[in-house]
């Protein structure tokens, strides 16, 4: 075997492996583990934004139902999807170990997302049970939850404030 060619072959394999790994990482939505505060904040922001979008979609659909502009089955599907969306957001951030200084906000993030998840579930149950008189009030509560999540998302732009 020609040494140069062998080295070249190894180099080619190494390059191909690196490219393949990157492609697989991209294809599976995986990212390398990055335990710093910035990385956690980005993940937390994404989870909060996803939860907020799902809550807003549920609110929008409920309001359209109150105005008679959407079918019951469509509304039900949108709410089921919103419930799944908030659930996924909750799982994604709940499984991430926060760095020390972010422990407090971790509790806030997971707490608010779980609260939103509970609210969307309540709305979905009301829709399945056709409790139309509750839609307006539920939409208002979803709106408040979405506002709170959006404020939290803005807050996550910056590192936690240190006392003193």
């Amino acid at each position: 075997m020609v040494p140069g060619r062998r080295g070249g072959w190894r180099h080619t394999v190494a390059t191909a492996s690196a490219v393949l790994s990157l492609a697989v990482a991209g294809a599976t939505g995986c990212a390398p583990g990055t335990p710093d505060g910035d990385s956690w904040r980005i993940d937390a922001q994404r989870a909060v934004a996803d939860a907020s979008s799902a809550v807003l979609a549920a609110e929008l659909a409920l309001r359209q139902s109150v105005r008679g502009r959407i079918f019951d089955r469509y509304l039900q599907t949108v709410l089921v999807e919103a419930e799944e969306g908030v659930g996924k957001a909750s799982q994604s951030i709940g499984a991430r170990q926060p760095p020390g200084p972010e422990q407090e906000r971790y509790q806030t993030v997971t707490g608010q997302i779980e609260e939103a998840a509970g609210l969307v579930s309540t709305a979905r149950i009301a829709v399945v049970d056709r409790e139309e008189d509750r839609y307006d009030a539920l939409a208002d509560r979803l709106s408040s939850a979405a506002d709170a999540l959006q404020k939290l998302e803005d807050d996550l732009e910056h590192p936690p404030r240190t006392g003193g």
Partner: protein
Amino acid sequence: MKKFFAVALGILTAIGGFVDIGDLVTNAQVGARFGLSLGWVVIIGIVGICVFAEMSGRVAAVSQRATFDIVRERLGPRVGMANLLASMAVTMLTFVAEIGGVALALQLVSSVNYLLIVPFVAFIVWLILWRARFSVMENVLGLCGLTLIVFAVGLWQLGPDWGDLAHRMVVVDKPGDEQWRTWAYYAVALFGAAMTPYEVFFFSSGGVEERWTTKDIGVMRANVFIGFPLGGLLSLAIAGSAAVVFGPIDASVDTLGQVGLPVAVALGKIGLAVALVGFVAATLGAACECGLSVGYSIAQYRGWQWGKYVRTDVAARFHLVLALATILATGVLLTKVDPILVTEFSVVFSAIALPLTYFPILVVANDPDYMGDHVNGRLANALGSVYLMVIGVAALAAIPLMIVTRMGA
């Protein structure tokens, strides 16, 4: 008069058949997050698909042979295989996404979980591919897909600031809270969605199925140059209506149900019902086109008998591929993979596969041995070459952008 109707029908079905699950989802996602600031990408993508669809349609009309058949003969089995693998991988992924899209659309109508609907949809797709006449399939689903015009009506009814929307389309800018790399990722995704390879293969193979000759080149060009751009306007209408409804509340679009909400806001139940017909028709039509494209690609490369105008027992291997592809797509969906996620992958991987798909078409359309007097002119060559460069940049950027943005997060 008969020719006029043929042209009109071709244009209408081209408009209705232009939008698929990739266009629906990607345009709504981009509209909600970026407004119409990426509208120019859709326009560039539409011009690109027109350039290459015209070339492949002309190749079919002049040679009466399909693209893969000629690519393999002209460029050899290696390039032919690369072309086949790249387009097949993307088309199969798109096939999965389209069947999932039909199931998601029917879930919105029935509120039955889409996983229970997937086998039913797959059976209907297979039945259409096996039994339905080509013209019936193309015309019925294409015309029903036209109902997506409801998004344009809805956008008009929502009363946006048209000047602002138009301004955002021509200025390269992004919302302040978004990053440029995310903007670039969605630009590549939109480009991939507009230039999906299966559309060109289906178009040219359909030309062979319908026995186009050089006399049909005029009609083919009318379909491409009028039908495709008008279909692209539907894409912009979907993005525009999502921008108007979701932009101000700062919400993103993650599901097909959310894609339809702007129409409900603008037009109520009737509009929503029409949009649902459009969702089902667009995704079902695209599923049939993808399924056929998988069969066309393999059969043409292998030199088998193919096509819906050939008796099924004569084109048995072609129909076996169609059946196996449908079973495979169903199996993938039944693993509970999210069809919207598959759609997002399909449009990005479409961008990656574009050079291997479109380069051979440019070569064949430039070969006087095949094309005679209908070989590419200067304009077609100039546009084709420029687009190959754009396609190359999009293909190279796709995976790195996918990784650094975590799929546009």
